[in-house]
């Protein structure tokens, strides 16, 4: 069994989950939970990550990560535009919240 890694689990100073950490992660995730929701989420965070802390005790030295349980025999396409089955531009735009002159429209970001 490998030596237990330094506590890196939840916060860098291992203080456990708090509203500050949830706020930091929420900004990264483009979410803005209100104060009450943030407090509930912080409590869940702490319990869930504490329960998962056992992962830190497993010896994974020299073990390759597994990111895809692939058989490796799929069909790969060239990196070229393909018209086969391509969707109509107007049909796609019709499903967006706001469009303008054939494009998705978003709030102004410059000037």
């Amino acid at each position, binding site marked *: 069994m490998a030596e237990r890694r330094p506590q890196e689990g939840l916060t860098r100073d291992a203080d456990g989950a708090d509203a500050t950490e949830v706020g930091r992660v929420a900004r990264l995730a483009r979410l*803005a939970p209100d104060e009450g929701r943030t407090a509930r989420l912080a409590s869940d965070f702490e319990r869930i990550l504490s*329960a*998962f802390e056992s992962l830190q005790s497993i010896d994974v030295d020299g073990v390759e*990560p597994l990111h895809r*349980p692939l058989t490796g025999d799929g069909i790969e396409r060239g990196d070229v535009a393909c018209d086969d089955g391509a969707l109509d531009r107007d049909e*796609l735009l019709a499903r967006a*919240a706001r469009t303008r002159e054939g494009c998705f429209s978003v709030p102004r970001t410059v000037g």
Partner: protein
Amino acid sequence: MTSSDARDADATSIAESCARGERSVESVVADAIARAEADPFGAMAEVRAELALERARELDRRRAAGEAPGPLHGVPFAIKANLCARGFETHCGSRLLAGWRAPYDATSVERLLAAGAVPRTTHMDEFGMGSSGENSAYEVPRNPRDSGRTCGGSSSGSASAVASGVVPFALGSDTGGSVRQPAAFCGVFGLKPTWGRVSRHGLVAFASSLDTVGVLARSARDLERVLAAASGADGRDATATTTRFEPRAELDGLDGITFGVPTFARGDGLRGDVASAFDAALERLAGLGARLVDVEIPQAEHAVATYYVVATAEASSNLARFDGVRYGERVDGDGTLDGMYAATRTHGFGDEVVRRVLLGTHVLSSGFYEAWFDRAARVRRLLSDGFDRAFATVDAVVSPTAPTRAFELGSVPDPLELYRGDALTIPASLAGLPAVSAPCDVEGLPVGLQIVAPRGADALAIALARAFAPGSVPAAEVVR
């Protein structure tokens, strides 16, 4: 075949009956529409009766003109609302996608339509995140075997619709057990294929390295028929295998088959009544001639932690696309771009989705990646290798599908407790293995037997399930 026969009939018998001309597709579909519109357990999202009848008449015309019927000729089926079906609302159980209609068919849907099937859609846990059907902005389906209980999740509506006889089979998606667990709770068969067996093109992604398109049905032979039609290489999904799915002949008993019983099959949280049903299932397998041996799958006790790190990390990335620009509803917020993103997502996502996106963002963020995501991916390798070693000595691994029977609606509000309920289905998901949940019985509250086979051996998993539970399970009685 009468209308009430059709409610209990499996897809194979309906397709054969329509192909022989004993029933018109129109009459089969009209009956199915009546059942879907009655929808006593709240499973159906959208029926689109006129479209279904038009399609049914077209199938009848084509057969009359001499065209060979497809393997699912005239069979009504249901599609989980996270699989694109052209013109249907693909809301994924989320408020954020309310009213969003798919502009194309998922590959799996397209292939089933080509095989002659007739679609409608079902409710689900939001973006596939849940084990009870209750994490939804829409109706929560109820269990046809006991309407006060959950049907499981996240393919809740698909399981409910199959168990109640609204449709003979349905598509679901299974990331960590979302086809198998509701199948077990509702007393039907559920198949999670080998990862890559069925194209994921058109499946709204939750955790891409775990997501599979699965099948729920009332007979094992239907699982095979549907998988044969839906599977295969797809130029639109490079991870879809080119190895053809070859159905197996029906097994005559289980002589020569060795089942491994892993330690995790009897892990913490297994209820006594489920353990008893599992013991009875093992006796039945032995009675059919199978040999049973104990096997150890290292790290399986860490599977839940591993899964919820990997899956939430992938979800946090996949769900970044739902930002109010290309899909669904927009909330303006403070009028800035960042403010619009945050307001849209915070309003549109339910609590469980927010919880998982935050967790996934945390385990991927700078300073935590190595300790959580990278480490979990390495534990995943150990677990997958452990299955490979076990399959050197056994044909399949068996366990209960879930540690409990269907629980009462609203009775498990704690997310961590729900996560732990996935402990028996998650190991096969992490390893990308095919697995079938077969009903042990459907008297009272059902229990499922999970059969996990080596990678690519989907046909073996189905054949073993069929040997264990031959024939078709009846639809639940509707008590009015």
